[in-house]
């Protein structure tokens, strides 16, 4: 069991900083958000549910920018909502990069 703090430090190193990467405190919140709230549809372990799985192997057709765009604006014709009222562009990009790289265990 890796300690959360060590994990976050490793994540911070693993992900190249976006325009303005969220600070460590916010990263912790975003990870919780990803697991609990995105996880409501995509599964807490990102293996999918009513929403599609979000593991790196499932995202090969996406670049982080495209994914961030879906996070912010939603996906028409599906239940994926636009999260732009709750997340900033930088936060969406940070999540998208982490997802594509498989940085969220």
């Amino acid at each position, binding site marked *: 069991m890796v300690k959360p703090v060590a994990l976050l430090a490793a994540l911070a190193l693993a992900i190249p900083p976006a325009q303005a990467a969220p600070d460590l405190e916010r990263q912790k919140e975003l990870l919780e958000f990803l697991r609990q*709230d995105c996880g409501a549809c995509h599964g807490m372990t990102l*293996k999918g*549910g*009513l929403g599609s799985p979000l593991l790196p192997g499932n995202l090969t057709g996406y670049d982080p920018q495209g994914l961030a765009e879906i996070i912010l604006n939603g996906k028409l014709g599906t*239940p994926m909502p*636009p999260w732009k*009222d*709750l997340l900033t562009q930088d936060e969406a990009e940070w999540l998208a990069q982490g997802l594509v790289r498989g940085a969220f265990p």
Partner: protein
Amino acid sequence: MKRLAALVLFLFLSACAGLEPRGTGDLGIIIERATGSVLVVDTTKRAILGRIEGLGDLSHASMVFSRDQRYAYIFGRDGGLSKVDLLERRIAARIVQAGNSIGGAIGPKGDWVAAANYEPGGVKFFDAASLAQLAEIPALVDGKASKVIGIAEAPGNRLVFSLYDAGEIWLADMTDVKTPWVRKFKQAGQLPYDGLITYDGRHYLAGLFGEDGLALLDLWNLEAGTKKIMPGYGKGQEPLPVYKMPHLRGWSQAGDEMFLPAIGRHEVLVVDRRGWKEAARIPVAGQPVFVIARPDGRQVWVNFALPNNGLIQVIDVPTRQIVKTLKPGKAILHLEFASKGTEVWVSARDDDQVIALDTETFAELARIPAQKPSGIFFTSRAHRLGL
């Protein structure tokens, strides 16, 4: 001499206190979604009896009870199906029956349990005693597998469920549990996200994500097929983001009316069951997730999706007014009423607590510590159709 006998008896009883006979009608299960564990609770004493671990991914877990209210069948997100013994507080049987699962039902006779699956899709049936697989219904439409949602047992040893991708409602006759006979209702509606059966087993409703409205099947008149109710309830309005899918069960019913969550509107829809016409719309504080009538039908309690998930609103049924807005804790995920409605337990995920509230005074009665609690299930569900 009498006193000595009493003392001996007392010592004997104390020694086997763990084996003391007790009923299970006032017990309940609290799902701890992040740790794959559940708490067994005594709802009379509002106390934890024990924790059962090793149940896999419970991040979207649901469960049903055996008729004798001793066992809980817990359906995990990872396809795990665990039969848990509430008295001995241990796992009596456990299988991993699919890759990704959403929920399940138990047959009206209590002899089979059915799991609704996302991956690979379809429904599987298991022996309620051993969890040995009995049958499977693949949810294939035009060669494409569909996710199954809104599963409920129905009178006459039947099971009804909806196909998310294909937009169909299927009714399976389980007279011969090894060879289900399936009747399919096509074009029920776009993207059904959950379904409910009324407590009397007559009506099945599927909530639709892909269009404004709900699909209705009258099980007393199957020849009529499905029909849409509340069509176009959001006409002309830009839908609001749905940050969390609502859930539907028979507890939507209060008297002759059904109180249903709107999709993409901050409203509770009231539908008159005697004709299935809109009776009212009640503006609420956010996107409703659970809309649950107190068992006597006098109040309806509502919780919400982000960012209003710290709120609960209480609707007074006769006046259709919101009579109370509560903030019991952070990230309210679920609520469950005591069987006669005197109190309600709500799970506050981000406070790691379940809070018991009086439904008349709204006073707090107890706080029960739980790790990231989500679903709360009391054994009184065992005798209600569709729960």
